[in-house]
Structures are given as structure tokens and as C-alpha cells.
């Protein structure tokens, strides 16, 4: 690992840093503008109608216990696991077995993850081990305890770690998410014919998709969220249109017509103009999403059947994403970023049962989604990656198998899925899971110091999506502090096939 710089703050240093920060932010905006031009030019030469890519961020809110998602089956790792996990131990014979090509040890996934294990063994899913937020590399427990290496602020707090995972800039106040920065970069180059924002969220406004230019558009499991008063549950404008799209000669038809005429006025006042733009855009996007769903329904893919075993919150979100990908021609975008999420992973209590249910929801949802993408013939065009606040403590917080759970940890194992993934492999490095051992961040609870930073993990994904090497450091400003995931073999982050 590279050595981090020392951080010594004097008044002069502060002023210099502040000045540099100002220049840095101005530089970032300029750099992104420049990069956008390059990307647009590159796409004009090489991109084509078939060059479609969709990136899905799945966030597991609360901190998934990935120590019980990827589980050692035998060997040294298994011995350490059995010695420390207490009531959270999952018997080896119950595991969903996986057989990584690049790891001689035997592994399994949580017993409820049978679908994910099938995907893994079929080469469509991989696990990147011990990933977490870092400001600088931390070699081991001694260096962690030394205090010489700046740590991510509020390291074990939910909301801070969620934001840091989504921004990939843990040591600066939050401004944008890395998904938003990537969208800002590639949007002009790939989505000139787009009819809807390339950033679509199935889970409300999120930090990941916040950019400076591309706005995130929120839909739900049923599609676009209608403006208040337009939806089928409201009678103000219900049944207002004829089949040909003209206004009905009715009270509601007239009301809708007048309202839309008002919304189409131009305003000299900027705030008024912006307000009507939001309304118009929402109406337009709603129409586009409706068209995309109609297009998806016209495909031969039976989404309802594929998701029959995944009728959960996550399954519903992934089903809508699969449909929107199926209707991608209506959106007109060649690059789309989706965000979905599930809560409930903060398993301080009753973990054995609740985590089992969560793993079942995760596994069935991912399997149905990948099957849908395969059925659409877009296996190599879609990539899903998982993120979570942190993993959880290796040791349990009690001795009751019905009441106890685990607490906030740090580095965890991440799932990446899709045709572009070099599946059936484990990447990164599995920690020494000895509580109080060299990878434990203080104490003896088993909170793993990440061996791979969020920046390294995310940059590989961003590169696949179209961020070239000239722009990668702009999107991930701290990436240079860590071993290059592209050039340093020992980082073991070659989890995507860029060919």
C-alpha cells in the first residue's frame, strides 16, 4: 500500500489548503467540462445504437452482515469463524456452496442465497472482499491505533458511512455522489437523444445520484409517480383525455387543459419559470416512463413470471428497473444509472432470523433480475453492484440466538453481478478474522480494516460504464492515494471484463 501524506494543520497550511480547495473545486468543474467534451467526442467516434449500458447501485441500508453472506466452508478461515461468531455461526453443511476459480479455499454463501450461489457458479456474480470507506490506506491494527492515519469521519455512524459510500469522498463535506458525477460526465456524450433523466431512483432521493447537472428522477414499483392531482387515485384530472390524447369535453378535461396551458406559460421571473419547468419536465418524464413500460410489455419477456418468487420490496424495485431497461428505446438513453435499496440490515437484535429473511429477499431478487436481463438479451450491457453502510462486528453482542445480533463494523464483502463481471471469483483480500488480530480496528469485536477502498471498488465499475482513464481521478479524487485497481495486480480488483 502507498504511504499517506501527513496532515499537519497550521494557520498558514489552512489558508493554503483553503485556497487550493477553492482552486480545486473550480478545477473540478472545469475538468468535468473538459472531460465531457472528450467523452462526447469519443462516443461520436465509437459509440453506436447498440452501445447501451445500465448501472445499478443496490444499497443495503443499516449495514449488511457480510460476514454471514460470504462464509468460509473449511480451513483456517472456517476455524476462525467458528471460534468467534458465537450464536451467529452458520453450520457449514447448510451453506449455499460456491466454487471460486481463483481461490483454493472452500466457501459458501448464506443458506438462503441459493439463487446467488447459482449465479456465482454460473460466472455471473463475484464477491469483492473487505471493501470500506478509507481516507488513506491503513496497513494494519497498529497503524490504525497509531492515530497517524486520518480515518473517515464518524466511522461507525450509519448516516455518515452511507453518505461516504455514495460520495466516495469521505474526507470532504458532501457535495455530490459518484453516480451523479459519472452521469454529469457521460450524459452529453451518450444521451443526446434522451427523453428522461439518465439517473433514475427506485428508492427516493439518494446521495449517490446527486450531480451538478443531471437530476435524479424518482419512480416507484408501479412506474412514474404522478403529479399530485394527475394520478388515477385522484379525481381532479382523472379520465380527462380521449384515446387520441385530446382533452375530453368534460369538467375534468377542461380543467386539465387549462392547467397545462398555465404550465406552458413562459415567465420572466426565474423562480416562476423554474417552477413551471419542473412541472413540465415531470409530466414529460411521466409520459416517457409510460412509453418505456409499454415497450417493455411488448417484449417477449414475462417479467411477472420471472419475479414470481421475488415479490418483495427489493424484487419489486428490480422488476421495475428490468422493465425500464427493456423499454430503453423509449428513454432514448444509451447510459442509465439506477438506484434501489432495502432497509432493515441494522441487525443488532434477532439477527439469525431477520438476516436470513433479508438474504432470501436479496438472493431471489438478484436471481430474478439477472434472469430478466438475460431474457432481454442484455447480459453484457447491465452491471449491478452492492453497497452498504459497513459490515457488522464479527463477534455477536449477546448469547441469545433469538434476541442477539451484531454491531457496527467496517470493511465488508460486496456483490457485483452481470455479464461484464468476471464471475465465479473472489476479489480483494479476505481479512484475518481473528478478533483483536492484525485486521481488527481496535478492541476485540472483529471490525475489519478495509483492504480495498470504496474509491478502488467504485472506480473499476465507473471505468466499465464509460469513465476513461483521463477522467477517473476527477470522479474519484482520492483514488491516487491507493494502489491502482487497474495496474497493481496485488490489489486483486480485476473483477470486470472491459473487453
Amino acid at each position: 500500500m502507498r504511504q499517506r501524506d501527513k496532515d499537519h494543520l497550521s494557520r498558514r497550511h489552512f489558508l493554503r489548503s483553503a485556497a487550493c480547495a477553492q482552486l480545486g473545486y473550480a478545477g473540478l468543474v472545469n475538468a468535468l467540462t473538459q472531460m465531457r467534451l472528450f467523452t462526447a467526442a469519443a462516443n461520436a467516434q465509437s459509440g453506436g445504437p447498440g452501445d447501451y449500458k445500465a448501472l445499478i447501485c443496490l444499497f443495503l441500508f443499516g449495514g449488511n452482515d457480510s460476514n454471514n453472506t460470504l462464509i468460509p466452508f473449511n480451513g483456517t478461515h472456517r476455524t476462525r469463524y467458528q471460534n468467534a461468531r458465537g450464536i451467529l455461526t452458520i453450520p457449514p453443511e447448510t451453506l449455499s456452496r460456491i466454487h471460486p476459480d481463483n481461490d483454493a479455499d472452500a466457501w459458501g454463501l448464506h443458506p438462503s442465497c441459493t439463487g446467488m450461489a447459482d449465479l456465482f457458479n454460473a460466472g455471473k456474480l463475484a464477491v469483492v472482499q473487505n471493501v470500506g470507506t478509507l481516507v488513506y490506506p491503513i496497513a494494519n491494527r497498529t497503524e490504525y491505533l497509531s492515530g497517524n492515519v486520518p480515518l473517515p469521519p464518524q466511522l461507525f455512524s450509519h448516516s455518515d458511512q452511507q453518505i461516504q459510500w455514495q460520495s466516495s469522498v469521505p474526507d470532504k463535506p458532501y457535495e455530490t455522489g459518484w453516480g451523479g458525477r459519472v452521469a454529469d460526465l457521460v450524459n452529453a456524450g451518450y444521451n443526446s437523444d434522451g427523453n428522461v433523466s439518465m439517473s433514475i431512483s427506485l428508492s427516493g432521493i439518494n446521495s449517490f445520484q446527486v450531480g451538478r447537472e443531471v437530476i435524479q428522477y424518482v419512480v416507484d414499483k408501479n412506474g412514474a409517480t404522478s403529479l399530485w392531482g394527475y394520478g388515477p387515485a385522484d379525481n381532479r384530472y382523472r379520465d380527462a383525455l380521449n384515446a387520441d390524447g385530446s382533452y375530453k369535453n368534460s369538467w375534468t378535461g377542461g380543467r386539465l387543459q387549462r392547467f397545462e396551458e398555465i404550465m406552458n406559460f413562459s415567465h420572466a421571473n426565474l423562480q416562476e419559470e423554474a417552477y413551471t419547468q419542473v412541472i413540465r419536465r415531470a409530466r414529460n418524464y411521466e409520459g416517457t416512463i409510460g412509453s418505456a413500460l409499454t415497450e417493455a410489455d411488448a417484449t417477449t419477456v414475462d417479467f411477472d413470471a420471472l419475479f414470481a418468487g421475488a415479490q418483495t420490496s427489493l424484487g419489486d424495485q428490480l422488476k421495475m428497473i428490468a422493465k425500464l431497461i427493456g423499454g430503453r428505446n423509449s428513454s432514448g438513453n444509451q447510459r442509465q444509472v439506477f438506484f434501489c435499496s432495502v432497509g432493515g440490515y441494522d441487525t443488532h437484535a434477532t439477527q439469525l432470523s431477520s438476516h436470513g429473511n433479508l438474504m432470501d429477499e436479496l438472493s431471489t431478487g438478484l436471481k430474478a433480475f439477472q434472469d430478466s436481463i438475460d431474457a432481454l438479451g442484455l447480459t453484457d450491457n447491465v452491471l449491478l453492484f452492492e453497497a452498504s453502510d459497513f459490515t457488522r462486528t464479527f463477534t455477536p453482542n449477546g448469547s441469545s440466538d433469538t434476541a442477539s445480533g451484531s454491531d457496527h463494523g467496517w470493511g465488508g464483502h460486496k456483490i457485483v453481478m452481470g455479464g461484464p463481471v468476471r464471475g465465479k471469483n473472489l476479489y480483494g483480500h479476505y481479512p484475518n478474522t481473528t478478533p483483536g488480530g492484525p485486521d481488527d480496528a481496535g478492541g476485540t469485536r472483529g471490525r475489519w480494516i478495509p483492504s480495498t477502498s470504496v474509491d478502488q471498488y467504485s472506480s473499476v465499475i465507473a471505468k466499465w460504464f464509460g469513465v476513461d482513464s483521463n477522467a477517473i481521478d476527477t470522479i474519484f479524487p482520492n483514488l491516487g492515494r491507493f494502489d491502482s485497481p487497474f495496474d497493481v495486480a496485488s490489489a486483486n480488483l480485476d473483477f470486470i471484463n472491459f473487453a
Partner: protein
Amino acid sequence: MDETTKARLALALPFTALAIAIVVGWWMRQGSPPNSTPETPIPEVNETRTTGQRPSEKEPGAASPFRVSPGIEVVTPAISLPLGNGKAEPIELPEPTRAPIAAASLESLNQSENPPEADLLFIQDVLKTYRAAFRENPFGGENEEIVAGLTGRNARSLVLLPPDHPAIDEAGRLLDRWGTPYHFHPISREVMDVTSAGPDHQLFTEDDVSSTMVAD
């Protein structure tokens, strides 16, 4: 804007910029430590102190990651941990200072004449005082880490709980009135839930007392 105003502004702006530059330059000189540059590397360790022990048990000279200034009585937490405030640690921590928390309040913690909810309210008040000073919760997720921050292991060596408080055990953990360590749950930099396991000593059972259950 009329022409006269524009002319005045054009005249005034360079002078204003010059004045700001002079003031900033003077301030930077004042702030510059003698015989040092910002690039001066930070020494790895200035002085060491034993950790994992109560203050009364310390063994001078034993290995420790803590860097303290010679001659200053620094409150040493019972476990070793970084400050965790997002920065590399300074060479010297300032002299310990007591936060203005009434002695009577400190003594009231875990007293049987008060209801258990009062203990949670007191701990939340201490955390609130910490946040008022640092604009964030103490570093860490474990009881002993949070308590270390409250007992002086922080960037200002601010002591909100005396490290020898009877409710703090040998491992540096804050115990509830039944002798079980409180469970600290960091939600955000401004929200920290605290739970007592209650009389059955078992967390996440019906007799738990949580700060989420008591009025703030």
C-alpha cells in the same frame, strides 16, 4: 448602475483587494510556527503511555500509541484508540479541562432513588454537551470508545465524565445500574441511541431501557 458608481467601484476594488492581501499576509506570518514549515513531518511518537489500564495503574515508559506532551496530566482512556476526527492526530493534545457538568448530576447516575430513564437522560445530556463542543458525537461504535471520548480522549482533552466515575469499569465501559455496559448506537454525527439491558442483563429484551423511549 450609473457611470459614476462604476468608476468609483473600479477605483475602490484594487485598493480593497490590496488591503485584504496585506491583512491575510500578516495573519499568515503570525500563524507560522517559528523554524517550521507545513511540510515538517510529524514525529511518530513524542512520549508513550501505557494503555489498557486505569490512570492509577499506569506504568511510565510502557509502549502505547498515545502521543502526549511531557509533564501534562492527560486523561488516559482504558483502551487504545485513535481520535477518529477525520484528521491525523496533533503532536500534542491540550491540557485536560472539565466540561461544565454539575457534580450532583454526575453523582446521580445509576442511583436507585432515580428511575432508570433518568440515567438515559443524563447520558444524552452529556452527549449533547460533547456535541456542543465538537459538533459531532464522540468517535467510535463501542461503549469503551464512546466513553473514552467523554472522559477526555478527544481533540481538546475535554473531560465530560471523570474517568474514575464509579459507573465506569476497568475496561473503560460505562455500566448501567445493573452492572451491564450500556449499548451505544451511532445513528449520525448528531444522534446516538443509548440502551440499558435492564434487570435481566440481556440486551434487546422487553425490559430494556432505551434513550429512544425517554423524552429528549
